[in-house]
């Protein structure tokens, strides 16, 4: 069943248009192996991410999907393998360096500042772009003020885009789960990333909320050309919106290809998808 219901001719034209515009490889993951003591989280994983595409990473729980994202992000440092980002081989990197290089992410269990309002949380996403020094910001005059207004304007665009105007001043801890996920997406978008890593963005949502989230993801990809790597369990969503799919199981890569190819792959069916009865 298609979650993104009935694409009209218009939408198909748009999908076709952006599919044509998928560019060269922007991130290449080569032979990554990651262990925690005796536990081998990832074994010899290689795949490529092309510019402007939506890549889905799927697999049963414990397959190493979040670990993979964390490696890309700089949280975990693999024992073996290398990552080539924008043609440059990356040395072992801290997350903030990854952020400065245009990688933003959301978290499976939400990592927002619960006491701050939605607007403020999204503003924190602009952190890497704030130039004025701490004194100017504390006294809030001149260049700091101007900068704040620019950032606020951009964040309001995002708030409008995600349709969360009604909760912009509400402390995020009081928002329902689905709304929090949206705010977190907003925060990641605020950083204007080249690559957006989404860790189970639709976990815990009902059909309507999932459709909304899909629409946002597609719109971001369409309007801003952001490359997306997403971990998702809902096969309907994965098959509908991703350009390519990577399947992991017990730290190994099972398949890598278009959604249709992966869906028909016998190994994937045995390990994860199963068959309809």
């Amino acid at each position, binding site marked *: 069943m298609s979650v993104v219901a009935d694409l009209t001719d*218009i939408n198909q*034209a*748009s999908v076709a248009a952006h599919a044509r515009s998928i560019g060269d490889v922007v991130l290449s993951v080569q032979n990554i192996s990651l262990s925690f003591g005796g536990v081998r989280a990832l074994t010899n994983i290689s795949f490529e991410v092309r510019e402007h595409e939506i890549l889905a990473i799927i697999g049963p729980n414990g397959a190493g999907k979040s670990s993979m994202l964390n490696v890309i992000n700089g949280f975990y440092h693999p024992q073996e393998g290398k990552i080539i980002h924008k043609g440059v081989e990356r040395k072992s990197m801290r997350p903030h360096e990854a952020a400065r290089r245009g990688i933003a992410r959301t978290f499976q269990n939400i990592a927002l500042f619960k006491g701050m309002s939605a*607007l403020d949380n999204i503003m924190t996403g602009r952190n890497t772009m704030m130039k004025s020094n701490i004194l100017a910001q504390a006294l809030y005059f001149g260049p700091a003020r101007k900068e704040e207004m620019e950032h606020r304007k951009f964040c309001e665009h995002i708030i409008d885009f995600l349709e969360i*105007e*009604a909760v*912009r*001043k509400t402390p995020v801890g009081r928002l329902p789960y689905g709304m929090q996920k949206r705010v977190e997406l907003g925060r990641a978008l605020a950083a204007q990333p080249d690559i957006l890593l989404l860790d189970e963005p639709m976990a815990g949502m009902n059909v309507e909320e999932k459709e909304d989230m899909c629409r946002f993801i597609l719109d971001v990809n*369409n309007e801003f050309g952001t490359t997306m790597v997403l971990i998702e369990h809902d096969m309907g969503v994965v098959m509908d919106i991703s350009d390519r799919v990577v399947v992991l199981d017990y730290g190994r890569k099972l398949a890598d290809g278009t959604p249709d190819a992966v869906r028909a792959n016998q190994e994937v069916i045995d390990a994860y998808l199963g068959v309809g009865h």
Partner: protein
Amino acid sequence: MAGPLTTTRDMDTLPKLLKHHAQVRPNHPAMREKDYGIWQTWSWSQVHDEIMAFAAGLSALGFERGDTLAIVGDNRPQLYWAMAAAQTLGGTPIPVYQDSVAKEMAFVLQHAEVKFAVVENQEQVDKLSEIMPDCPALKTLIYKDPRGLRDYTMDFLHSYEKVQDTGRAFMKEKPGFLDAEIAKGKGSDLGVMLYTSGTTGQPKGVMLSFDNILITARNNAVMEGLGPDEDVLAYLPMAWVGDNIFSMGQAYVCGFTVNCAESSETVLTDMRELGPTYFFAPPRIYENILTTVMIRMEDAASWKRKMFSYFMDVAKRVGTRILDGKPVSGMDRLKYAIGNMMVYAPLKNVLGFSRIRLAYTAGEAIGPEIFSFYRSLGMNIKQIYGSTEASVFICVQPNGEVYADTVGKPAPDVEIRLADNGEVQFKSPGVFQAYFKEPQKTADEKTADGWVHTGDAGIFDDNGHLKIIDRAKDVGHLNNGAMFPPKYVENKLKFFPYVKEAVAFGDKRDAVTVFINIDIEAVGNWAERKGLAYSGFQDLAARPEVYDLLLDCVNTVNDDLAVHPMLSSCQIHRFLILHKELDADDGELTRTRKVRRRFIAERYADQIEALYDGRDSVYVSTEVTFEDGRKGTVSADLRIRDAKVHKVDEPLRKAS
């Protein structure tokens, strides 16, 4: 403020008034919208320029005198300007309910032979593109918000800004064109066409001239002393006649500021930020606000609750008297003043009611406690009675004569009479011209001597105020001959916060029974406080504890009815709680949330029979329409309960 209002008396069309304000108060704020989280303002001269640019652009696209322009969307400045632009060119704007499903919209656009449409966003573009094959006249679609429309390449689609750019170029080539068009307009021209939502049958296009709108608007503005400094919040559907009078008619007559709410979810926040001075809301909004306040008060600290309760008692005793200018003792005035400082003013501030000089409500009966709650806080809320066919105002309660159970005295220049069967009929400068392309229905609506049927049954009370009993054709009779006005019974139930909607049956029956819709907020809150877990509306509506709660409400209503001189036979004998809310999308309510009796009687015929044949429960399976038009079914077993009915003697038959 008689001055500014009387000098504009000879400006008989909206565009002429626009020119006037652009000249006389060019820098006065005319319109605001919250954008990027900040209120943006346009002055009268800026609004004038925007409208002229759009009008010229429309003309360049082929819009001609006499053409109609459909308007679909939430309250946005650009849509209001599009309406004025159409009027400038001698055309007629037709605002359409933005939440109509495609079929309803197709009917209106077909019927009115609409060629041009201005819509807000992608959702409306999609909807109208879908129905374009059914509306052969529709050739041009103009959208305001470009989000999501990047890849739409249809050649009938234009952006609002592009149209304005074309317009500005057009105006350079033909500088006097628009002024000449405006000069051709006169008061008897068609100003706007509004399709009524119709409790029965298909919507009808009510044709209102400029005179209809502006004279009525001006009469009311003079009566209430409205002026250019009012701030109004535009949040109710543009297709509704009230919004047309408040946000266009009166705005153009007085020159005041119309503020567009950011979205329907942010209305309360917007009100708080804005502090409107002139406000309208249907009774259920006032009720919802009160319920929210009460629910939140229950969570407050105990000393706060005590303080609230003490001062609200003071307000109940003397607040309304102070507002009405009646004598009040010095001690009470002092208490009220302290109460104002500690409770009433902060409360009004949080709700956004601090600056309200005039608040209207209409459309349904308002619960007396709700009414007196707001009045006791010092808010001048009054009831009005009107209809689309009257350009809104038929009756208005004058200041100092405000009662919960009347709709007031005839508005300025309005004459009212009661027909033999009790129907209210009126004559006024606001009477509509005709129903578009429906000469028979127009003739049916007006009497032989030029009065208009309202279809409502009413009586005048001793103060000269009109009281509306019910829709005349809905007033039925029980089998024992007693009069049965269903709305009267339903309203009594709806005055309880737990009841959101009620439908009463009894015509040609032995006894009265009702369907009830619970109010999920109020009942949900009650359930939580009782520690009752529930998994959603349907689950909550089926619980025996909730039935007990509503049984209390029904019994209370019966207590009241038992002592009523004419309606003691209308006590409710049995009731059931519906498993889903009655919904306009399913055709059970009109777009203005009024119950469609005949439709409900057909759809729920089995359930009504069950109420009368003594069964304890009845199965129901209804088709529902989701927001995007898809259909599904919802089913449940509904329990039926008996209520406590007082025995009374043979009722008085209705005096003829």
